[in-house]
């Protein structure tokens, strides 16, 4: 426990330094794209955010399977926190996408397969969070785990939508690799690593917070029982 705490502060500091390096790479190192101009720099936050949203939902998928298999509440906590973090990153994708689309496609939104499937993905996991709030505590973990597994079907559909259907969304990763110049690739790599650190930093903080909340609830329940016991003892004493 102590070792984890000792590693936690350097991890957070590294995240901070990497985020600054990412901003430097985006604005000072990456070249300006010839056709789109500076607006193309949105790419460096849009793509890592999309990938990390998929990763978050994959963590939820795995944690949900583990919860149903082992019935350990720890996996339910991981699944729930990963959804929350994933929704944040998916929101970033849905905000930066239309801002990029407006000057390039001349529309804020179009019902393109990639855009539509991403929106459905976002609604699916917002529904997951709403479901957790609306069901009874004894059913919450089981229902959420089933939802977390079924909801993941949307992730591969969203990822492959630009290959399966006719779309105006660009395909960056092809069978020949990433279709970009090397300074752009390097900038993307730096941004990607920085966003990964940010993602795990936020996710781990969220999980620790949820675990602490559960421990406090347990202590409160034990204290209520102790208070009843103490009151009974006092009554007997009188």
């Amino acid at each position, binding site marked *: 426990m102590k070792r984890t705490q000792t590693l936690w502060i350097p991890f957070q500091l590294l995240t901070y330094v990497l985020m600054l390096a990412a901003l430097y790479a985006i604005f000072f190192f990456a070249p300006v794209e010839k056709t789109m101009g500076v607006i193309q720099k*949105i790419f460096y936050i849009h793509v890592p955010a999309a990938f990390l949203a998929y990763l978050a939902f994959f963590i939820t998928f795995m944690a949900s399977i583990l919860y149903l298999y082992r019935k350990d509440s720890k996996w339910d906590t991981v699944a729930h926190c990963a959804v929350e973090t994933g929704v944040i990153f998916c929101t970033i994708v849905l905000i930066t996408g239309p*801002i990029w689309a407006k000057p390039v496609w001349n529309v804020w939104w179009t019902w393109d397969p990639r855009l539509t499937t991403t929106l459905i993905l976002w609604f699916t996991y917002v529904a997951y969070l709403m479901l957790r709030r609306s069901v009874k505590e004894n059913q919450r973990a089981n229902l959420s785990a089933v939802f977390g597994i079924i909801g993941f079907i949307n992730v591969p559909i969203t990822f492959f939508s630009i290959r399966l259907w006719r779309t105006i969304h660009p395909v960056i990763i092809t069978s020949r690799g990433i279709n970009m110049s090397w300074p752009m690739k390097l900038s993307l790599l730096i941004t990607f690593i920085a966003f990964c650190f940010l993602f795990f930093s936020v996710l781990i903080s969220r999980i620790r917070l949820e675990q602490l909340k559960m421990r406090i609830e347990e202590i409160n329940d034990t204290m209520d029982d102790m208070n009843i016991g103490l009151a009974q003892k006092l009554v007997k004493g009188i």
Partner: protein
Amino acid sequence: MDNSIYLFAAFSITWTVIFLYIFRLFRSQKALNSQINEIKKTLQENIEMKERHS
């Protein structure tokens, strides 16, 4: 074609979303800390009450 305003908007909104979420986590942490203090206080009161009646 200068699209700097779109670039500025995209980055500002992204960082606002991230900071708002981190701020929310920070507030939850603060609320849990005050609950811990409350528990400590109640425990102390219980110990004192037990000592008085023993």
